């Protein structure tokens, strides 16, 4: 079976960040989950802080960035996407939303997505479901049911969730994403809209005008 591409996008601001830490744990678990199903996979991780200027330029002035375009192309071509945002003021971070806002509205259609988030305390944990999940519903992505929230205390051995520790939640969510990826055919590569050879079907002048051209 062909190799699947997992793309990880994290919106952590520090280096290293708790978001990245969680993202790495999630991608390792998803890779392992796919391996158990006999599916090979590769992982590519993007830190949005490295694209902050490009994102702002894109949104404020429309100025393109080839590195941002390359990143967005990789995201759109992924077989599965893992996203992690810190929770600020009850919601995803501004940097994370910049990324969502530059996505083509069809880029994530029916793509399996695992949502992760982190914050100082577990009192923010529902932000995944009331703030982040609707973004992926809007984009018609297929977010797996389990989101993984990591509070600062989850990274220590005391004060975290002792009944359902972080790793257990990671494994559950990663299993769901691995299953969703494995059940799907590899994501077909995007059609280059500027490739004359690929130009056809529904985009030829006759199709474009259709009955609407008037006679």
């Amino acid at each position, binding site marked *: 079976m062909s190799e699947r591409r997992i793309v990880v996008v994290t919106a952590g601001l520090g280096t290293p960040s708790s978001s990245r830490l969680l993202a790495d744990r999630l991608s390792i678990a998803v890779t392992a989950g796919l391996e158990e199903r006999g599916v090979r996979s590769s992982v590519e991780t993007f830190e949005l802080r490295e694209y902050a200027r490009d994102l*702002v*330029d894109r949104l404020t002035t*429309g*100025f393109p960035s*080839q590195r941002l375009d390359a990143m967005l192309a990789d995201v759109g071509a992924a077989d599965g996407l893992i996203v992690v945002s810190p929770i600020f003021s009850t919601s995803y971070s501004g940097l994370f939303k910049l990324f969502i806002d530059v996505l083509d509205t069809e880029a994530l259609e029916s793509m399996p997505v695992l949502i992760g988030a982190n914050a100082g305390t577990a009192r923010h944990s529902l932000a995944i479901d009331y703030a982040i999940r609707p973004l992926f519903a809007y984009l018609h992505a297929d977010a797996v049911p389990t989101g993984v929230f990591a509070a600062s205390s989850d990274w220590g051995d005391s004060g975290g969730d002792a009944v359902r520790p972080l790793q257990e939640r990671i494994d559950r969510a990663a299993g769901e994403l691995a299953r969703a990826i494995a059940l799907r055919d590899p994501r077909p590569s995007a059609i280059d809209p500027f*490739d004359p050879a690929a130009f056809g079907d529904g985009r030829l*002048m006759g199709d474009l005008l259709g009955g*609407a051209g008037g006679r």
Partner: protein
Amino acid sequence: MMQFGIFSVGDVTMDPTTGRTPTENERIKAMVAIALKAEEVGLDVFAAGEHHNPPFVPSSPTTMLGYIAARTEKIVLSTSTTLITTNDPVKIAEDFSMLQHLADGRVDVMMGRGNTGPVYPWFGKDIRQGVELALENYNLLHRLWREDYVDWQGRFRTPLQGFQSTPRPLDDTPPFVWHGSIRTPEIAEQAAFYGDGFFANNIFWPKEHFMRLIGLYRQRFEHYGHGRAEQAIVGLGGQAFMRKNSQDAVAEFRPYFDNAPVYGHGPSLEDFMRQTPLTVGSPQEVIDRYAAMRDHFGDYQRQLFLMDHAGLPLKTVLEQIDILGEEVVPVLRRELAVNRPDSVPDAPTHAARVAAAVESETGVLGASAVEAAHV
């Protein structure tokens, strides 16, 4: 061979170095002065944009171009762009035919969709149907200029039965049409389908994108049997600011760049110069940059420069057009003529189009008759 000219957006912008904003009246008169200067220094084309919201003044392009036509002799008057989505194609057909007659054929037109969301509802349209509007409206416009009586029914306009737009195009030869686009493959396809020109407004984005967009247009032009790919009619945008010394040009232009509409307060001048055709420096640097354009896009027909935006004072803009017309364009004309294959068409003009039409009808070379009629 090639045409060089100016295209103006017509923004009313504060001069960031003085804090002064021109009045609408000053800006409109400045656009006319710029067009006259363009003719004076030997440029070939002046094109004006169309907008229906401040801070832009040119809402009535054919009124402005008609006035300029009366005060000029040679320069071709064009648009950048004419909104094919929200204007009635019947009115476009009539306005530009009228302008053609008044200007003795010195008219062509560039179609664009317009990217200001509210303009669509202001004119009773929906931006989500922008491409469909451009296709249907142009299809009707194309027929109105070529068929004496048109029966037509479409989705976006009230039907027509036996309609004749008036006046008929000068010499039964419609204005040449450019289709302007920044990123829409469907518009490249449309231009190719009709064998019209394609103007890639490349002033905000890197060349790699436009190489693909123009490449698509050229391939589709060949596909539809209008000629070989290298014979497709391509126009490009450009942007320059020049002083004798590069450093002086950069120092003078930077405050205008930093505060410009669209890209101000975004990327640095240096980033923007690297990624787009904007060239701020000596005339020689501008020559070098634009002489190399055909290496990326193939030999092309029209090069337009945006010179009068971001609050630059009229005096400065006129100086810039002097430099462009006297020091830059003559050299570019020479350099771009070198190794230009004979098979690559010249930029379209009314006289040449009339001659070609006569030739194809009668088999007789018709150029001299047209010269006699309009020169």
